[in-house]
């Protein structure tokens, strides 16, 4: 039977073949070098203007970044982030018409350890990137993914943002910034205006750069650097993840934690708008660009980028959900040029449905890994619930079988008082809970109850959760203890929603 049950009124615009030697649609003069969307042909000059304007418009429109704020630019070496770096340089340069007014720093996360690159290969990529970073004059931080094993548990909690600046505050901040800027310029000795470059004091930057390098290379007190100490940890962790899809998601999560941690410790308030971490907001200014536009711009204007192999470099395009989706969209885009922009516009109109919440208080539980609101408390008639039903019905029927979702939890709590040594804070009695808190790695079941739908899928693809970094394991233990404690006293609590764990 034909599957169309609901018709779609608007026809999708099919690709129209570009005519050769078109004129630029903007200046009507220059020869077009590039067709952005069907019909929009630009000459070199107008393309540059369009590209730059889009970047500033993106940041300006939403007033995402306050003047004088420290912004950490996450650069992977790939075309999109390299292009972002060049746009920031362009925007901060003295003669920029609508000057950007924030203080940039760069972070590169070396993830070579997850895809079998040797240390030499990794250092070679780093050297290439360093020379690009150094040329910008911005401070930069090179962080090894292995450092994730040294993260504190605090990275998993959202820190409340600095008190909300009022709308009018933006203008005040601009004025303040311009004043400071002038004052600095008049004080700077010698070379006049030429030397002036925003907020930078070269001596301080130099020291910071050196500091960030020390962190990753040679340790001050002789302990081997994280890349050596945790090389095997990282390998073990990733080999416990069975599918490429879950590997990519895990990597994304860890990368995120490192970024947020670095931003916090280095005093950055904007990473790249993704307010989930509270104090550090993530901005993605390149979302508005197609990869084709970026590739063109980089080529045309000599923006350097570095190819660094990743998890998926040698994989087929059917190896993971991420790769499948990418190739699906790319192929569709070739036939229907409005595909990407439509998906983008659709996503702009949507948000995750929040479970019924009390106005004002943001107390709903957050996922241990991705720090998003947990979306697994959905009502009975839901895909999540239906999946639990299917799993229960396919396994041996337990007499008087518990309801799905509440079942497996208790067997862990039941083995009380089998504590195997006190680490992970608290120990017995003290702050832990009414019961002894055995400090063992939480089981997959324990962990899943603390995760959102999507992170559960990642954990489901793991053979064991024993190799997760310490900060994740300890935080999981702490939250499990807390929830068990709450269960025990639940009948005495008057307000169900009173103390939903947030961090």
């Amino acid at each position, binding site marked *: 039977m034909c599957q169309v049950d609901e018709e779609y009124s608007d026809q*999708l615009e099919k690709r129209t073949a570009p005519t050769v030697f078109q004129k630029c649609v903007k200046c009507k003069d220059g020869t077009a070098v590039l067709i952005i969307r069907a019909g929009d042909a630009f000459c070199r000059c107008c393309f540059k203007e369009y590209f730059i304007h889009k970047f500033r418009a993106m940041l300006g429109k939403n007033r995402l970044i306050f003047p004088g704020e420290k912004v950490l630019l996450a650069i992977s070496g790939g075309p999109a982030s390299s292009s972002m770096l060049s746009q920031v340089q362009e925007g901060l340069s003295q003669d920029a018409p609508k000057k950007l007014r924030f203080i940039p720093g760069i972070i590169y996360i070396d993830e070579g350890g997850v895809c079998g690159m040797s240390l030499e290969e990794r250092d070679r990529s780093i050297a290439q990137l360093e020379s690009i970073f150094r040329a910008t004059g911005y401070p930069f931080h090179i962080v090894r993914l292995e450092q994730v094993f040294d993260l504190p548990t605090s990275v998993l909690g959202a820190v409340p943002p600095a008190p909300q600046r009022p709308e009018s505050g933006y203008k005040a901040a601009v004025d303040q910034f311009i004043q400071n800027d002038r004052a600095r310029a008049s004080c700077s000795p010698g070379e006049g205006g030429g030397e002036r470059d925003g907020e930078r004091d070269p001596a301080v930057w130099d020291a910071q750069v050196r500091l960030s390098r020390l962190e990753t290379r040679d340790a001050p007190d002789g302990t081997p650097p994280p890349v050596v100490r945790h090389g095997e940890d990282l390998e073990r962790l990733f080999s416990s993840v069975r599918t490429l899809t879950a590997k990519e998601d895990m990597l994304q999560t860890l990368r995120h934690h490192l970024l947020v941690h670095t931003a916090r410790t280095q005093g950055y308030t904007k990473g790249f708008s993704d307010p989930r971490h509270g104090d550090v907001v993530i901005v993605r200014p390149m979302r508005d660009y197609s990869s084709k536009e970026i590739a063109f711009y980089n080529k045309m204007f000599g923006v350097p980028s570095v190819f660094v192999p990743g998890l998926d470099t040698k994989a087929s395009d059917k190896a993971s959900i991420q790769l*499948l989706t990418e190739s699906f969209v790319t192929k569709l885009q070739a036939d229907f040029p409005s595909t990407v922009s439509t998906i983008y516009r659709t996503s702009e109109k949507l948000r995750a449905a929040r479970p019924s919440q009390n106005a004002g208080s943001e107390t709903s539980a957050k996922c241990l890994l991705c720090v998003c609101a947990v979306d697994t408390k959905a009502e*009975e*008639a839901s895909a999540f619930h239906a999946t639990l039903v299917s799993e229960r*019905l396919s396994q041996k029927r337990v007499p008087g079988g518990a309801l799905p979702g509440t079942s497996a939890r208790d067997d862990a709590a039941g083995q009380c008082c089998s504590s195997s040594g006190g680490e992970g804070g608290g120990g017995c009695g003290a702050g832990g809970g009414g019961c002894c808190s055995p400090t063992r790695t939480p089981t997959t079941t324990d962990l899943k109850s603390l995760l959102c739908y*999507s992170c559960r899928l990642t954990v489901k693809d793991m053979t064991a959760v024993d190799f997760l970094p310490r900060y994740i394991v300890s935080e999981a233990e702490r939250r499990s203890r807390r929830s068990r404690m709450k269960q025990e006293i639940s009948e005495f609590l008057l307000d169900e929603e009173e103390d939903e764990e947030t961090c």
Partner: protein
Amino acid sequence: MPILCSSCEKKRAVLKRPKTGHSLCKECFFWAFEEEVHQTIISARLFNPGETVGIGASGGKDSTVLAHVLKVLNERYNYGLKLLLLSVDEGITGYRDDSLETVKRNEQQYALPLTIVSYEELYGWTMDAIVKQVGLKNNCTFCGVFRRQALDRGAMMLNVDKICTGHNADDVAETVLMNVLRGDIARLRRCTAISTASEGEGVVPRCKPLKYAYEKEIVLYAYFNKLDYFSTECVYSPNAYRGHARTFLKDLESVRPSAIMDVIHSGENLSVREGVRMPVQGTCSRCGYISSQALCKACVLLEGLNRGLPRLGIGKHHRLHGKILAKEPLTQEEERKLKAVDF
């Protein structure tokens, strides 16, 4: 060494569930499949005792399995429902004749009364005649719109309280993807709903009891139950764009079997941002059916067919609705645009 059923741990497993990966014997699979549909019906409160429920029967696997399972569950759990089969004859020579034969056999096998409504009697046009006029590119638009209304009209004639359709998890997930790709926020919000309340005059509430059933499991269920169904693609080729989405979903499923449920989960957990304007639902001023425009889609399509202007219902020609309602003639320029059809 044969694999044992993971549920009863006694019998030999005969299949691996596409949805969960568990190996089950035939009886345990039937049980699990039927119980899941039952759970869906109960948790979403799809029916009330004493209701007359029309099963949209096409003769295909989904509606055949739906009819079978509903009959089984109605008896097992005393839903107290009066079930009947409702079919639409689109008037497609060859394709429809064969599938209607299947539906007629189902009527006998399940002892459920069958009613057939046809495009010809409702609209005065068969699909064969429509294709002759509009070509093969847009015929699915006509068929989809007409079928939806035809089911409602049939249900109204029979005093049916609810219509059940055989949409399965794959269909729902695919529709979520399609609506994202098309940027159709209004449909994206509606498409994961398991049931729709009556949306006005002439519209019977609908539900999808197989919403969480995998297509592959539906085939397995039909296969082991030796259910008789008709499995030929519509002779008028289905929508190519939807084909892309379908292939993508199958690829996703092969990488991660839960992908189908995952997409539905996403759809269920999306909501529209504040401030996004949504089309206002009204009713068609000609036939009273729900419509966000002055005329409903079916009426516009029909008008186009009757005036010999097939493009009328295909593009966006809302501003012509006034003229059509007033029975005014179109200008030559307007007519020229609406006549051209690429076959």
